């Protein structure tokens, strides 16, 4: 598909003058029959990058200098080029084209390639699909031309050059032929059979490209049109057996080759594809480059040319089209559930479940809302898929404006995973499954990253010792592996009367320096009484040795330790009082210090990040975890922080 005047159409659609004042004196762009040119700086000079039909009719061509154009027509409207906006517009149009096929490739700067193999019959054949596509774009103010052909190259060529006016080039400047019915439309393009093989191949190996609701027959070649293929004019659906005939009269520029190559070919008298098609390939390649020959072969279908889809093609897709657009949320959700049932059936057949599901809501005006919902475990339950999208729609809220309604709704499973059917208990409620679903729903509402589980890490730095991991990604780990991992942890279980523990196994560097008040068991000096008995492994193992009547780690930790004012009786002793959040606390009992130092292998900056932690209880009973930053040095002020609170 070729959007002939993408840039100027964009400006005309926007309807307001772009920042063109510098060039054009601020006159707004009026209707499309006003000459409009878009300029971009090229080598220091402003040159025309795009022109509209009216300007084209005046003889202005892309590549001219703006000064020349101004000299010819002082009153033309000028706008600055904005390639980024053009690209965004092309992406939006590609979004809209997703309604015809999931395989939409970009052909920048102004083309799209759609693989309609197996999709065309859903729209009443290739020609009516093409007309529908073009009409839809014309309604929105684009000049589009589309062509359907067996190969990408052929479709590209026919869409851009399949018209006598263009073939003859600059001699005629009449508007496109009226018998096409859409005069502003120049071109859209479209390939058919090479990718249909690709698609069928995928189907055979059980991959993607399965359309669920529509039980589609294998792609068939379109019946040859009655009007003779010798005349390419006005024929934008090239039948399968006429690819070569369609290409023959076209200029060599239609082969997507560099303009310099076209010039070189013209110099030796090769102007049309017909001139080059029967020549021996080797001399052509030697003289004009491999690219030329490859393009020629691709256009003829002798060489394969895959389309790169813009979006990942879902493994399973179901969709529903409406004669009248729907806009109510309840209708949308009802449709989603209906589609989900079909999707589930498809997945069941292959023993898979969805991990990532996407709903695409195609608005009548071409805008597409895509809403994805991830799950923690493969999901194969229509009611739950619906429940996920209830949350997603609520979370998306007003961003998803139905406008005049949606006329296509598509549900696709973007990521799937093997999912064996599980035996459900007769006694009803399965807590684990309920929990998985709850996590999915909460994640759909608030974002999967906000639903977390705590996973221990192999470090002693308190704030890094526990990581919050998205619950959807670590369910299996926490239920089964975590305990096993913990039991492997060298410093894991320490029942008081149990056997040896240790800070110092090979993978556990000595990060905690025992301070004078701390007696830390070491693996080389087994505790007396600990010999001979293996450590008792209980379900509730703690990483931290519990050698006190109170817990040794706080139940709540502040992300950033809060500075407190504290005074200690002796410089490196426990505090006797501290002030936290403007309240003064007198310390009744204190335990510590527990010195936690920077892990040695990371201490390359030379900054001694040593903290002496104290567990402190105030007279009222408030228990907090304080630390003194750094080692005590004479004369330097000591800074105290509160890192967490105990129960």
């Amino acid at each position, binding site marked *: 598909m070729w959007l002939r005047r993408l840039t100027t159409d964009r400006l005309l659609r926007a309807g307001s003058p772009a920042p063109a004042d510098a060039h054009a004196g601020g006159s707004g762009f009026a209707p499309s029959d006003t000459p409009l040119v878009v300029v971009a700086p090229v080598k220091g000079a402003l040159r025309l990058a795009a022109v509209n039909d009216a300007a084209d009719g005046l003889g202005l061509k892309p590549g001219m200098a703006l000064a020349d154009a101004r000299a010819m027509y002082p009153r033309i409207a000028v706008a600055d080029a904005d390639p980024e906006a053009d690209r965004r517009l092309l992406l939006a149009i590609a979004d809209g084209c997703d309604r015809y096929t999931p395989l939409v490739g970009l052909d920048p700067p102004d083309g799209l390639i759609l693989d309609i193999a197996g999709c065309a019959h859903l729209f009443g054949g290739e020609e009516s699909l093409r007309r529908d596509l073009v009409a839809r774009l014309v309604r929105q103010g684009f000049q589009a031309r589309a062509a359907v052909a067996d190969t990408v190259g052929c479709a590209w060529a026919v869409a851009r050059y399949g018209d006598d006016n263009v073939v003859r080039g600059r001699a005629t400047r009449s508007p496109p032929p009226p018998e096409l019915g859409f005069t502003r439309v120049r071109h859209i393009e479209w390939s058919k059979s090479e990718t249909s093989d690709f698609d069928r191949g995928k189907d055979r190996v059980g991959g993607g490209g399965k359309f669920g609701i529509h039980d589609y027959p294998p792609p068939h070649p379109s019946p040859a049109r009655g009007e003779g293929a010798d005349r390419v004019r006005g024929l934008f659906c090239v039948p399968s057996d006429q690819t070569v005939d369609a290409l023959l009269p076209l200029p060599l520029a239609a082969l997507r080759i560099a303009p310099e190559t076209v010039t070189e070919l013209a110099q030796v008298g090769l102007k049309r594809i017909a001139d080059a098609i029967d020549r021996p390939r080797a001399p052509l390649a030697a003289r004009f480059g491999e690219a030329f020959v490859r393009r020629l072969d691709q256009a003829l279908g002798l060489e394969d040319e895959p389309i790169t889809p813009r979006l990942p093609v879902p493994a399973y897709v179901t969709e529903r089209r409406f004669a009248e657009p729907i806009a109510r949320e309840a209708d949308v959700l009802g449709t989603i559930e209906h589609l989900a049932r079909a999707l589930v059936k498809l997945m069941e057949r292959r023993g898979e479940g969805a991990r990532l599901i996407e709903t695409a809501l195609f608005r009548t005006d071409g805008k597409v809302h895509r809403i994805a919902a991830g799950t923690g475990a493969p999901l194969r339950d229509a009611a739950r898929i619906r429940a996920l999208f209830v949350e997603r729609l609520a979370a998306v809220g007003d961003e998803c404006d139905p406008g005049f309604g949606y006329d296509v709704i598509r549900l696709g499973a973007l990521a799937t995973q093997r999912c064996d059917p599980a035996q459900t208990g007769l006694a009803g409620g399965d807590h684990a499954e309920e929990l998985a679903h709850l996590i999915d729903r909460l994640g759909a509402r608030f974002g999967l990253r906000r639903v977390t589980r*705590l996973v221990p890490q192999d470090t002693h730095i308190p704030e890094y010792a526990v990581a919050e991991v998205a619950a959807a990604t670590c369910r299996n780990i926490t239920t089964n592996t975590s305990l096993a991992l913990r039991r492997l942890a060298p410093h894991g279980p320490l029942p*008081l009367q149990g056997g040896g523990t240790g800070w110092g196994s090979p993978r556990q560097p000595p990060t905690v320096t025992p301070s004078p008040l701390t*007696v830390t068991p070491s693996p080389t000096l087994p505790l007396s009484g600990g010999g001979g008995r293996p450590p008792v492994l209980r379900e509730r193992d703690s990483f931290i040795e519990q050698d006190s009547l109170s817990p040794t780690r706080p139940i709540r930790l502040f*992300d950033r330790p809060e500075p407190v004012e504290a005074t200690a009786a002796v410089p490196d002793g426990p505090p006797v009082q501290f002030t936290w959040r403007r309240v003064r606390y007198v310390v009744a009992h204190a335990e510590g210090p527990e010195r936690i130092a920077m892990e040695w292998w990371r201490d390359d900056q030379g900054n001694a990040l040593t903290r002496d932690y104290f567990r402190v209880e105030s007279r009222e009973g408030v228990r907090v975890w304080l630390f003194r930053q750094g080692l005590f040095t004479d004369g330097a002020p000591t800074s105290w922080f509160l890192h967490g609170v105990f129960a």
Partner: protein
Amino acid sequence: MASAASRGALRHLRQALATLDKDKGFSLVEEDILPLGLPAVDAALGGGLACAALHELAPAAPAQFGTAAGFALAIAALRTATGRAALFIQTDFAALEAGTPYGLGLDGFGLPMERLILLRVPRPVDALWACEEALKSRGVAVVIAELPQAGAAADFTATRRLTLAARAGGGLALLLRHRPLPIATAATTRWQVAAAPSTPDRFGGLGRTTFDLSLNRNRRGHSGRFIVSWDHHACAFLPQTLSLGVAAAADDGPIAPRRLARAG
């Protein structure tokens, strides 16, 4: 205390009444209750904390949210002893103000961290919504929702909704406020939790975690004030005693070298 026979008759009658009252949405069937293991408290609560119900906790002093959270987590530890999961919902602001649950500390406190799922939500109403959904889903045994400040979003209507959701799903709902809310709510019990000085061990170190619980509102019995300790080793509440707490003696070998092994 009723005899076994009369208890059976009572249950039968309650079930009969429940079938009559089914459409009214509440039941008189003997409920799932969670005994706290404290005779005085359990007596006040009618045997224990009602599980399919909402309970409100608030710290008695502003800085004691750790204590209130501790009591909630202790209840959660008792309730999830079978291995089911607990959900802790926090608003972003509450997390900033009062800190986030710390896995290692929870492990040490008696609630293994793999039983806990954390949810951080932007607004208090989101926390209430998530709490209601979680209670209905039966996936989690305990839901703790923490709201910053007085948690004014959890007014009578909201707490009523949570109560109904808890009743429907059988989950234990604990609403944790940072300040007591002065208006009436639909919660089954309302507690004010204050930190109490612990009984130090004989070395002068910290003793067992001690709570000063004020049961301010109780739909099923009288209110009261209790001072209780939490034994994180045994994962059980203990009534506060006047005797000194002592560390358990090692059951094999001399204890002398361990005596000094204190608090790292």
